[in-house]
């Protein structure tokens, strides 16, 4: 069994939701970023989402846009993100999902990417701007038991479309909490619950909810009905506010532990 399926089975047995933690790789710089992801994994992140910086992140709000810009200023590209994954894998079995826009993957080469990502110990990929209709050109030859292509479902996705998206899915499903970019305000947990239940009616895969979830209270509320919660902009905001602090990795560890605690109250 692969690391992602294993993880969800283990969490289910312990009545916990998954804490999926996102950070942009290489922010604020590659060494600190490596320490940050290691500390997050040591402090309870269940699945790590490692963001591949891109010059034009149209699905992201200002916080992640700026983190992407900082990483690119340090010259952090796909090969570096894979190298960070490889280093992390030496000491950790936490599943790693690479989070990218499509163009950096195309530039790397689809076949090369698949081979190198597997070798580095990554467990899956999420491509924000590659909907189901276009995905086959990338993942057609992949073994989804070894490397998951994480599919997104949006609040605008009708039930019929949910069914076609989930038909070929593996790993887990990423349910976007609301229309908008990452890190935006105004979370409606009643609405999210309704969408989660709708999605649950067409799939047996775990469902993780993301976009705009920023407090342990949100996490705790969503953990009542979802299988996982994605925290991204909140972590990135912490990085941005402490760019030069030597304590940044430790602070990220504390923050991770707080969020993880909020997932433990799952029913």
């Amino acid at each position: 069994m692969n690391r992602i399926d294993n993880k969800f089975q283990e969490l289910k047995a312990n009545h916990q939701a998954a804490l999926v933690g996102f950070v942009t790789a290489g922010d604020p710089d590659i060494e600190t970023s490596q320490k940050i992801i290691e500390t997050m994994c040591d402090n309870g992140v269940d699945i790590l989402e490692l963001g591949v910086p891109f010059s034009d992140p149209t699905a992201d709000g200002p916080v992640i846009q700026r983190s992407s810009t900082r990483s690119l200023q340090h010259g952090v590209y796909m090969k570096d993100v894979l190298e960070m994954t490889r280093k992390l894998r030496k000491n950790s079995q936490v599943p790693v999902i690479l989070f990218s826009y499509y163009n950096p993957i195309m530039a790397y080469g689809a076949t090369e990417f698949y081979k190198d990502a597997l070798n580095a110990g990554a467990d899956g990929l999420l491509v924000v701007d590659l909907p189901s209709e276009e995905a086959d050109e990338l993942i057609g030859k992949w073994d989804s038991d070894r490397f998951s292509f994480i599919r997104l479902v949006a609040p605008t996705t009708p039930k019929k479309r949910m069914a076609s998206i989930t038909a070929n899915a593996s790993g887990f499903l990423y349910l976007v909490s609301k229309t908008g970019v990452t890190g935006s305000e105004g979370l409606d947990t009643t609405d999210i619950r309704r969408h989660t239940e709708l999605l649950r009616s067409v799939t047996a895969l775990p469902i993780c909810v993301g976009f705009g979830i920023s407090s342990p209270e949100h996490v705790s509320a969503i953990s009542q009905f979802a299988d996982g919660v994605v925290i991204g902009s909140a972590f990135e905001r912490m990085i941005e506010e402490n760019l030069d602090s030597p304590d940044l990795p430790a602070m990220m560890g504390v923050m991770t532990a707080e969020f993880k605690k909020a997932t433990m109250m799952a029913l």
Partner: protein
Amino acid sequence: MQAENKYENPYDVSRFPNENGHFGPYGGRYVAETLMPALIELEEAFHKFFPDPAFQTEFKELSKNYTGRPTPLFYAERLSRYLQGARIYLKREDLVHTGAHKINNTLGQTLLARWMGKKKIIAETGAGQHGVATATTAAFFGMACKIFMGVEDIRRQAPNVHRMELLGAEVVPVDSGTGTLKDAMNEAIRYWVAQVRDTYYVIGSVAGPHPYPHMVREFQKIIGEEVYRQVLDCTGRLPELLVACVGGGSNAMGLFYPFLNEPVDMLGAEAAGFGIASGKHAATLCAGNLGVLHGSKSYLLQDEYGQIKEAHSVSAGLDYPGVGPEHALLKDFKRVSYVAIDDDEALEAFHLLCKKEGIIPALESSHAVAAAMLEAKKRGPEEIIVVNLSGRGDKDLGIVTSA
């Protein structure tokens, strides 16, 4: 003799795009899942309403009496004589309401938005021509309108900002990146993702995700259809060459499309900025390669890591690192040739057209004029070149006087 073989395997216009919006390997819908249902809804609405005779009647009536179509096809005799080459005809899109071809598309899309029951309109703009055209048709139909525009473009195209505001649109300044068209489009997409349920996004070129490249071409092909009739009326035959500038490529697609199955050569003029060797240019087809940006797969200006490069051109409307997917396919088919015209060549053509014909062209269109001038000199007076004069140059006076 060569001419007979040249079009043996013409670009078959009926084949593209396919049902998923692909033009061969290009095009498609590379967007966040949140937008997919909206794009599918838009595609269905376009297929339902566009062929509707009532929609066509309304579109044609407004194109005639509001936009001011048909625009003249004008024989630029003084310019042609000066160049001592082929005869140059200008398709006067600069004479339509708002001063550029952009209104053909915004009229069509805003009308479609109204038929779909949408009340809010957004658009991105570079030079401001598409923004002004969108603000105009939104005002006409009584719809709320927001225009996303880069801060650098707001600076260099100030008159258009004032026009949009007079028309009741809100101009949203975008300061990310270089503050130009690419950044404005990023921000318009982000806004649309948040407001997709009640907002219609009027993309200004044959770029973006399906169905925009197809739909915008359909609204712009009226340019080529008119030229087809007019050039036969004036000269009794089809021209040897069509020339248009290419940023995203909508005025070029509009001119070229009705001629694609005819034995007519076509030339797209991209912006070479400070020159391709300088790296500061916007010649995507001449110097870019395959990638995905703003929802479609096409040629892009990018580095080896797939990060998008900043484009440069003296003309804000061409200052974009991508290009419409159908142009990418037309390039691969070798059905259209693409050349790069630098800032100096465009400015020289700008001044020449002012002096010789008493016409002040947009800097975008000046690239097409420059490319046509180079071609005209290689050809004799028995040959005919039609240039799409896509817009007027009033908005560029500040740039031209300081350049």
